């Protein structure tokens, strides 16, 4: 890992308050190395953004965390609030969810033919115990569960700002609302960690601002740690406490947003060595801004990176 320039600040000290600790994670598909010795720590209560060019392995990382893929090497540990430590490697997807990891999808995957409320209810009900016999007999326990999930779903719909749209079909909601609904559904499973896979993809600038607010709310009010994959650098820089950068399946940098912006390896990954040299060596006073623009794709100089960053990862 010669490319790792900035290591996570104080990795050793941070382990105790880490919710998720990933170490030496390697995922291969035949000869293709998708993730290579990835080290990543999500501290309790923080927002960590994972960025990287297309094909860097960000979504593969998410899929490994949630049990969709089973990496060949490495470890993923989850430290629960109750003090237990669980290994997430190779666990079934729904078990991972029960342990406290909820996720959203890059390409929205709602239950399109159900109403918005029903979508959230399904997730809210997964922890309940009432079985088919109790439901068929209409036992009080089952009825109480039904009322509870209903109330919780209503609350969450209010929380994400969809209170007026509970009875609409999930598929008839606008794109931004569908993203919110997916977040509400993930929150309904009562997670400790929320994994957001490009929540801002395909949303307009206003929706992006609202989304940034929502993510901060989830983090501060509900005390949920957030792991965020995002291409929109403005969003990343405005919400993330720390940023980890992946390129070709490797962690190339990790640190606060401003640190990462100034990191040569990161800028090179986005712009190529030549452009990076130009941008970074422009002047010491300007570096942060210029590299920030390069990575964020906001200003004119960063158009190339912007084009890369703005694209949907396949």
């Amino acid at each position: 890992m010669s490319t790792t320039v900035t290591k996570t600040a104080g990795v050793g000290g941070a382990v105790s308050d880490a919710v998720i600790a990933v170490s030496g994670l390697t995922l291969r598909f035949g000869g293709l190395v998708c993730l290579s010795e990835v080290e990543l720590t999500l501290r309790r209560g923080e927002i960590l953004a994972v960025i990287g060019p297309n094909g860097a392995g960000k979504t593969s990382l998410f899929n490994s965390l949630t049990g969709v893929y089973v990496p060949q090497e490495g470890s993923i540990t989850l430290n629960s609030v109750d003090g237990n430590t669980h290994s997430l490697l190779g666990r079934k997807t729904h078990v991972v969810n029960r342990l406290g990891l909820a996720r959203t999808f890059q390409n929205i995957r709602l239950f399109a033919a159900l109403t918005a409320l029903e979508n959230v209810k399904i997730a809210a009900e997964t922890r309940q115990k009432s079985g088919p016999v109790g439901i068929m007999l209409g036992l009080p326990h089952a009825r109480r569960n039904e009322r509870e999930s209903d109330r919780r779903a209503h609350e969450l719909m209010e929380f994400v700002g969809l209170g007026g749209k509970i009875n609409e079909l999930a598929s008839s909601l606008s794109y931004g609302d569908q993203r919110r609904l997916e977040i509400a559904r993930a929150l309904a499973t009562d997670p400790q960690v929320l994994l957001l896979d490009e929540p801002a993809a395909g949303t307009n600038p206003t929706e992006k601002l609202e989304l940034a607010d929502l993510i901060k709310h989830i983090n501060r009010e509900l005390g949920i740690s957030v792991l965020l994959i995002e291409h929109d650098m403005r969003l990343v820089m405005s919400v993330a406490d720390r940023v980890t950068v992946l390129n070709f399946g490797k962690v190339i940098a990790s640190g606060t947003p401003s640190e990462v912006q100034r990191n040569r390896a990161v800028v090179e990954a986005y712009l190529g060595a030549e452009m990076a040299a130009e941008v970074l060596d422009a002047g010491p006073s300007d570096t942060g801004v210029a590299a920030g623009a390069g990575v964020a794709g906001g200003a004119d100089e960063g158009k190339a990176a912007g084009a890369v960053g703005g694209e949907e990862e396949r």
Partner: protein
Amino acid sequence: MSAVKTLDRQPVTETARRIAALRKGKWYQQQRWARLMGLVFAAVVLDVMAGPQGSSSDVFFALEAVYKEPTSLIVWIAVMVGVWAFAEFGWGYVKPYFDWTKAKATEAGSSVRQVTADRRVKWPLGVGVAVLLIALPEMLSTYWNQVLVGEVAVYVLLAIGLNVVVGWAGLLDLGFIAFFAIGAYSAAYWTGALPVEPPVELTPFLVIPVAVLTCLIAGLLLGAPTLRLRGDYLAIVTLGFHEIIYLIAKNKEDFTNGPRGATGIPGFELDLGFWDYKWGLDPKQYWWLILAFAAVLVFVFRRLEHSRVGRAWTAIREDEVAAAANGVDTVKFKLMAFAIGASTSGIAGVIYASKQQFISPESFILLSSVLVIAYVIFGGMGSLWGVIVGTAFLAWLPQRLKEFVDPKDRYMYLGALLVVMMIYRPQGLIPSRRRKRELTLAKQGIGDADAMTEPVGGRMG
């Protein structure tokens, strides 16, 4: 009455007119002639189909018979030409009225569902239907009573069970009759009608919970290793399971009595001490019994549909990956659907065995499995009322057709009806609301109408 005048399509210049004429093509190249040819061809085919039965010694017998006596052929062609002429030329005159009626109906908000949801309509309607169903056998002849119980009612029970598996959980089960057979053979075993002696002899009522349990376990046994398979593969496995059960029934002679089947299965009996009621040879009694079971099942299954279990099934059907990612234990819920469906089938099996007093492997052939699936799809997967009405209709139809067509041809008409139905109304007779939405969305490329295929977005997130 729009203020905007429609564009005059007449070409302005001579050249433009010539080009337009070229583009238009000759009169005989118009689509309507192709449609006419198609309909005439259909008329010929239908006439041959509806004509006299073929003969194996003379391959062309049926064809010859049709053309030697061309009256029916002419009638068929005339009817088809009439249909064509109306569709091409007459429909334009009728359509405005049709649209008007449709618009009025929607405007008044008087869709069937809304009317029946009204309390003032719902209760009297429910009571009326119940009274009609209870009184039904009194209005029919013994023959039709036999049909009503042996064909219609038993299959309705089966369809209610299969609807849980196929309609709600979206798992294609082609071997559903296997559980029916297990239920029936359980009844035979526990009432002592098989060559092997049971530990205790039970009455049919007491057999029901035992059979339910047996089928439940059989459902779990089949489900546990196979439910991680998707769609088509699962269908093949269930098909194999059916064959296994069928062949065991046929060949394990020391247990099942082989092809000779089991005889002398006793009828139901309700002995309350002060009051003893026996079910005998009268099909009416069994009709009421099945009606009671069906009513209870409909009642509890409706609760199930609108509960966390029903919603979890829908979630799995629509997007298994998303469901699992939100904590739904997909395997558990699929197994649950399998077990509940199998148990219902077991109840039907016990009643069937007890009513017929005789079962043999030939009562549980693969065709029955396929027919139940067809009934469920015809009625509307996932909609209890649709499945019940659809099954009742399709199970009754071949019996009724006997009076009009060659009995050997009956299922051909059933097949044709299914083909037409699936083309023009794939959601079924009385579609479930969720299913209907899914079909519409699947057409637009969003989501999936069942858990049988890979989701549109691919398996991974």
